[in-house]
C-alpha cells in the first residue's frame, strides 16, 4: 500500500488535525467539524485508517462504538519517508517480520510475549497477536509504519472480529529497549530470554507459566543466570525470587533429577527474606477455582461425605507443591500436571510421581 494521501484527503486531515490534534474524536465529530455527510465522514476515516494515519479503538460492550485519534503530521511524514525507501514491487507485499527487518535500527523495538517466547521454546504456537515493546514516543510512527492491508495495530486491547493476517499490540517498555533485546539470525529483534522470563513471571497467567517452563527447559544451558542482567538478579530486583524458586524447584521435582542446578536455587534463596503472603501463580482462573473450592469446604456441614471427598480431591490439585509453599514462604496453587505436561511434551524423562 502507498502511504501518500491524495490532495482531498490531505485537506480533510489538516482540518481535523487543527481541530482535534491528538484528542479522541468520534464519527459524529468528523461530520460536525468537517461539515460532511455521514457517508463522506466514514470514507475519510476509512482512508486514513487504511494508511495507518488514525488510530481506532472499539468498545467491547458495543462493538460498533468507535473512538479515533489522529497520528501526528511528523509521524506520518516518517512513515511516508520510510515507505519511499521500499522497492516499488515490494510495497504491500512485505510480511510483518519483513517490515521489522526492514525498519532495522530506525525505530527501537523488541518482540515480546508469546511470539518472543516461541522463538526460544518452539513448544506452543503463539496467538495471532504480536506484542512489540517500543518507546512510548514512537507510538504514532509505529502505527503509521506497520498498518497495511494485512496488519492492524493496537495500543490497548485488541478488539477486532474482522479476519486479518497480523494483529500487532504495542507495549511501552519500562526499560531501555537496547538493553532488553537481541538480534535474531533473520535480522529482527526479540526480547532477551532473561528479560522475557521476568516478564512472564510478572504476568503469571497459566500460559505465561507454561512458556516460562518451556524456555527454561529448552534454553537452560544458554540462559544467563548470574550478573546484573542475569535472571537471578532481575528476579530479585522485581521481587520475583520466590516465584522463580518455586518454578525451578517444581521442574526438578517433576523431572526427579536436577534439571536446574542446586547452586542456582541456593543463590535465589539468598534473596528471599522476610514473610510473604503471596499466592503463586495469581492466574485469575486458578485463583477463582481455588477460592471457590475453599469457600465450599468451609461449609462442610452442608455437604455429603461424597461431595466433601470430591471437593477435597479437586482442592488437592492446587496444593500439589505444599513442600515448595513452605520452602519459599508463599502459597503455591500451581497444579502439578501443568509442569509435568510441559516436561513430558519436551522430552524430559519423568520420574515416579
Amino acid at each position: 500500500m502507498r502511504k501518500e494521501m491524495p490532495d482531498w484527503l490531505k485537506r480533510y486531515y489538516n482540518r481535523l488535525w487543527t481541530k482535534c490534534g491528538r484528542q479522541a474524536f468520534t464519527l459524529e465529530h468528523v461530520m460536525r467539524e468537517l461539515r460532511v455527510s455521514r457517508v463522506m465522514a466514514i470514507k475519510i476515516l476509512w482512508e486514513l485508517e487504511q494508511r495507518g494515519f488514525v488510530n481506532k479503538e472499539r468498545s467491547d460492550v458495543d462493538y460498533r462504538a468507535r473512538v479515533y485519534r489522529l497520528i501526528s503530521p511528523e509521524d506520518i511524514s516518517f512513515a511516508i519517508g520510510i515507505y519511499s525507501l521500499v522497492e516499488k514491487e515490494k510495497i504491500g507485499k512485505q510480511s510483518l517480520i519483513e517490515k521489522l527487518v526492514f525498519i532495522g535500527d530506525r525505530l527501537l523495538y523488541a518482540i515480546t510475549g508469546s511470539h518472543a517466547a516461541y522463538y526460544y521454546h518452539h513448544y506452543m504456537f503463539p496467538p495471532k497477536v504480536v506484542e512489540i515493546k517500543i518507546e512510548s514516543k514512537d507510538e504514532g510512527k509505529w502505527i503509521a509504519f506497520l498498518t497495511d492491508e494485512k496488519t492492524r495495530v493496537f495500543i490497548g486491547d485488541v478488539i477486532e472480529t474482522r479476519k486479518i493476517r497480523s494483529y500487532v499490540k504495542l507495549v511501552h517498555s519500562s526499560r531501555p529497549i537496547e538493553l532488553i533485546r537481541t538480534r535474531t539470525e533473520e535480522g529482527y529483534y526479540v526480547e532477551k530470554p532473561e528479560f522475557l522470563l521476568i516478564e512472564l513471571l510478572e504476568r503469571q497467567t497459566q500460559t505465561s507459566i507454561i512458556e516460562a517452563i518451556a524456555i527454561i527447559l529448552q534454553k537452560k544451558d544458554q540462559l544467563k543466570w548470574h550478573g546484573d542482567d542475569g535472571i537471578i538478579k532481575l528476579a530479585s530486583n522485581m521481587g520475583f525470587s520466590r516465584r522463580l524458586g518455586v518454578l525451578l524447584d517444581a521442574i526438578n521435582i517433576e523431572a526427579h533429577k536436577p534439571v536446574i542446578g542446586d547452586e542456582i536455587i541456593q543463590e535465589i534463596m539468598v534473596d528471599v527474606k522476610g514473610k510473604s503472603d503471596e499466592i503463586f501463580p495469581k492466574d485469575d482462573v486458578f485463583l477463582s477455582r481455588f477460592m471457590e473450592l475453599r469457600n465450599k469446604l468451609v461449609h462442610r456441614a452442608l455437604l455429603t461425605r461424597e461431595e466433601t471427598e470430591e471437593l477435597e480431591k479437586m482442592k488437592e490439585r492446587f496444593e500439589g507443591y505444599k513442600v515448595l509453599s513452605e520452602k519459599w514462604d508463599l502459597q503455591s496453587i500451581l497444579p502439578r500436571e501443568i509442569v509435568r505436561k510441559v516436561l513430558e511434551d519436551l522430552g524430559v524423562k519423568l520420574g515416579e510421581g
Partner: protein
Amino acid sequence: MERGRASKIEAVSLKDLDRINREAKDFGISLMVIGGYAVRAYTESRSWRFTKDIDFVTTKRDLAALRGVFELLKYGFDQTEFGVKGSKKINHESIDLHISVDKVIDWSTNLEYRLPKDFFSNAKEISIKPYFEENTSVKTSVMVAPIDDVLVMKLMTERSRDHFDAMALILDSFGKINVKRFWANAKYSDLEEHINKRLNSLLADLKKGLAKKMWKEFTGRVLIREQEVMLKKRINNLLE
C-alpha cells in the same frame, strides 16, 4: 531456532499427517485426529495456540498395523503411560504423535473418555489450515474425530486451555454439534454429571468475567459482548 526452521517443521508434520491419513485409509486402520489439531479443524484461525505435537486415537485391534505405518514414515514407536507415542527427529527438533487406544485419559482429572461405538463412522475428513504463512500451499486433509466427541473431551478436563477450546468450538461450530449424540457420548463414559457441571461452570465464568480473561489469554484478543451473549445462549441450548 529461527522462524524459517519452525515453519519447516510444521510443513513436515502437516505432510506426515496427510500421509498417515492416506496410509491409514489404505490399510483400513481406524485412526482419528483429536486434541489441538481437531480444534483447529473446527474453529477459526484466531484460536490457534497449539503445540506441534499431534494427538490421535485408534483401536487396540489396529495398533499393530499402525506401527507399520509409523515405521514407514520413520517415526519411533513407544509405549507410554496413556497409550503409544511416535517420535521423529528433524535436526534438533522432534515431532511427537500421541496415540490413545480405545479411550482417552485426561492428565488433570484421570477421567476416561470411552470411544462410543459410532465414533469412527461419524468422523469426517477435514482440511487443516497451516499456522505459518509460508505453509499455505501445504494441503492437509485428515480424518477428524466428530465434534461432539471433541467437545466432551475438552469439557472433561480441569485445564482452562481446554475450556477455552470448548468455548471456541461452541462459538465457531455450534451448528455442527449433534446435541443428542453429545449427551449420549457423555453418558456412555459416565461423564454426564461432570459435563453438566462444567457447562454450568462456563456459564458462571461468563458471568464472573473469567471467560473473557481466558479468551484474552489464549487469543490475545477481546471477547466482545455479542460473542459473550451468543456463547451463553448456545451453552444454555446444550444444557436444555
